[in-house]
């Protein structure tokens, strides 16, 4: 990666890591376990749509999807370098990781924009 972009990528990694740590556990417990196992009632379609009418809620969802994806891209990239010793594929791994994060963020922005 080009030098001037490195601090930016690290900031995205750091911000995404903090958001994922603060917010993913509760979202995961509810969406992944409590709702499907019948321990709690999932919000109705209408309630979720009403919630998403608020632009701040849309921004919230965009942020908690995009930044954690960049967190993954940065961390996974180094896992591949060190863990699997893919140092010789430096540029390719970076393009694939950050490209996937960019694609996911664009998809989230599109879905939220057209909701």
């Amino acid at each position, binding site marked *: *990666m*080009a030098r001037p972009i490195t601090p930016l990528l690290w900031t995205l990694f*750091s911000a*995404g*890591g*903090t958001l*994922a*740590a*603060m*917010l*993913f*556990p*509760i*979202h*995961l*417990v*509810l*969406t*992944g*376990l409590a*709702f*499907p*196992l019948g321990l*709690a009632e*999932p*919000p*109705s*379609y209408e*309630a*979720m*749509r*009403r*919630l*998403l009418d608020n632009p701040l809620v849309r921004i919230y*969802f965009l942020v*908690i*999807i995009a930044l*954690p*994806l960049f*967190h*993954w891209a*940065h*961390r*996974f990239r*180094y*896992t591949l370098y060190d*863990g*699997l*010793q893919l140092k010789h594929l*430096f*540029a390719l791994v*970076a*393009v694939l990781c950050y490209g996937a994060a960019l694609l*996911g963020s664009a*998809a*989230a922005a599109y*879905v*939220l924009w*057209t*909701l």
Partner: protein
Amino acid sequence: MSAAGADAPTPYRLYHPKWYRRRVSVWWWLSKPAYATFVLRELTSVAVAFFALVTLLQLRALARGPEAYSRFLHRLESPLVVALHALALAFVLFHAITWFNLAPKAMVVRLGGKRVPDAVIVGANYLAWLVATAVVGGILLGIR
């Protein structure tokens, strides 16, 4: 991508084409518990990405209408998906705990010229986690 060369092999490789290097196994990180913990922590990012994608799919279902949303909720009930979410939760909790505990090492905070003690920074992180959990949980359980 041209700048990737900056991180490529050091110049003296040119003059030492047969520079001695010990071969390290791809499984080097299994040799010590600390290494394995490190790699496990790095792999928590896969669970993070997985759940970001689940959230994206949820929003897409909400965009497509009530039927798509109920299909999405129904798919969450599959035992395989529940097991994946339980595993993801374990990884995300590991990420959260290691992340908060390392926070004071990543960022030194000074107040009035004095360094804020590590325990205070860690405590503030856990407090923020508690508040965020209560707010999000309250909203998602409260709306009907």
